[in-house]
């Protein structure tokens, strides 16, 4: 492994950023998965009553946002800023939702790392600016991502075994400076890393180096070990990538026992047709906002680290046979 944590500090520390609320919406397969009961909104149909999958993705986001705000009796007027992103060209899913929010908006793109990217941006605004209540949301939809990044849906492509399944859903999180029982403690901003992996059907393995790098960077910057965390999760490394990351850390003399992958947690890989696990922006957002955040609230977990991982390819770069650069951003959440 050529990449190792750099001397430059890449970790931000937050003193006053708290999680006020979260909201989730999932598609049918995610609802049937092992974490299904943790998601408050769901649809049995990928169209969700809309004419196109793209419109369905937006409706899912709106519901996830509304349920996040309703839980704490907030409205759009209470928001100072919104930060969001998704997988679609020109961030259409996020932008089209934001036009109804009537709030200053920042769109961010980090592929499947967007959950942590939007959260770390939101947290930075809460900590350092006059925007004190910031909403972050991110969505992905199996059918919209599939047709943009791979093949037309009508084609009915036979998927290769090493692929992952883009999760359908949206996760939203409301951050503010008002004290609650869970806070955002640190964020480590990842570097773009490209080890010349070219197979767009195997992005799980391509993203391992960036998760490895960001995790090392985070631990170095804070002078911590993996045992300082109750749980460390990566975004969507697939079953293959998950094992490789464990192996890499084992080679460094570190046992990653308290580690899992959101894509592997969201689905029952043995019994659901999701190939090597889940992927997509929604994957890490759903698992961390819908499942891990309540565990922190209940004090079943005390400190977790989320490493959302993103493959920064475009359909054009794939067609031109370019390799796949990847990035991983980390967020740590703590019980107050």
């Amino acid at each position, binding site marked *: 492994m050529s990449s190792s944590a750099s001397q430059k500090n890449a970790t931000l520390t937050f003193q006053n950023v708290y999680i006020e609320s979260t909201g989730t919406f999932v598609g049918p397969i995610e609802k049937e998965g092992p974490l299904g009961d943790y998601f408050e909104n769901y649809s049995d149909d*990928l169209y969700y009553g809309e004419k196109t999958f793209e419109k369905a993705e937006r409706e899912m986001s709106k519901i996830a946002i509304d349920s996040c705000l309703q839980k704490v009796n907030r409205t759009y007027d209470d928001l100072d800023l919104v930060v969001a992103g998704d997988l679609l060209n020109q961030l259409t899913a996020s932008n089209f939702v934001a036009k109804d929010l009537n709030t200053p908006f920042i769109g961010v793109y980090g592929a499947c790392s967007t959950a942590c990217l939007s959260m770390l941006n939101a947290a930075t605004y809460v900590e350092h600016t006059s925007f004190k209540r910031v909403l972050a949301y991110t969505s992905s939809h*199996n*059918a919209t991502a*599939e047709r943009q990044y791979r093949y037309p*849906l*009508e084609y009915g*492509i*036979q998927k*290769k*075994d090493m692929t992952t399944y883009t999760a359908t859903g949206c996760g939203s999180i409301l951050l503010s400076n008002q004290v609650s029982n869970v806070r955002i403690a640190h964020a480590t901003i990842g570097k773009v890393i490209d080890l010349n992996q*070219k*197979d767009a*059907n195997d992005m799980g393995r391509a993203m391992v180096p960036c998760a490895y790098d960001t995790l090392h960077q985070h631990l170095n910057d804070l002078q911590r070990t993996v045992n300082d965390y109750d749980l460390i999760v990566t975004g969507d490394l697939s079953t293959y990538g998950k094992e490789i990351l464990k192996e890499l850390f084992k080679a460094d003399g570190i046992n990653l026992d308290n580690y899992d992958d959101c894509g592997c947690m969201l689905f029952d890989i043995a019994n659901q047709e999701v190939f090597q696990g889940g992927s997509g922006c929604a994957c890490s957002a759903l698992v961390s906002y819908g499942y891990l955040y309540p565990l922190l609230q209940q004090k079943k977990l005390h400190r977790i680290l989320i490493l959302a991982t993103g493959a920064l390819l475009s359909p054009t770069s794939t067609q031109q046979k370019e390799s796949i650069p990847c990035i991983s951003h980390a967020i740590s959440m703590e019980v107050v």
Partner: protein
Amino acid sequence: MEYLLAFVFCGFVCLVAQIIYDRTKLTPGHITCGLVVFGAFLDIFDLYDKLISIFHAGALLPITSFGHSLMHGALEKTSEYGLLGVAMGMFDLTAAGITSAILFAFIVALICKPKS
């Protein structure tokens, strides 16, 4: 026996294609084009016609037969018009297949919606 032979040959072509798809990074587009070129190549020595006489529908059904038909049409018109015949006859025998592909795709697109 005819049925069995047809089944075996057609299945064999599919098996080869599936193995290539599973074992390499080639896309379905690469494999389909490869089989068309392979079928066209076999027509050079009339080999594909021999395959058809043995395996009947089994050899006519897979995409390799499309390459064979392209080559056949082109060669036929070449004997009549010379080099220009290659362009004139290329899609002669495959016209019906291409037209029906376009027509049926259009009709299906009108009445169906992808599920995911």
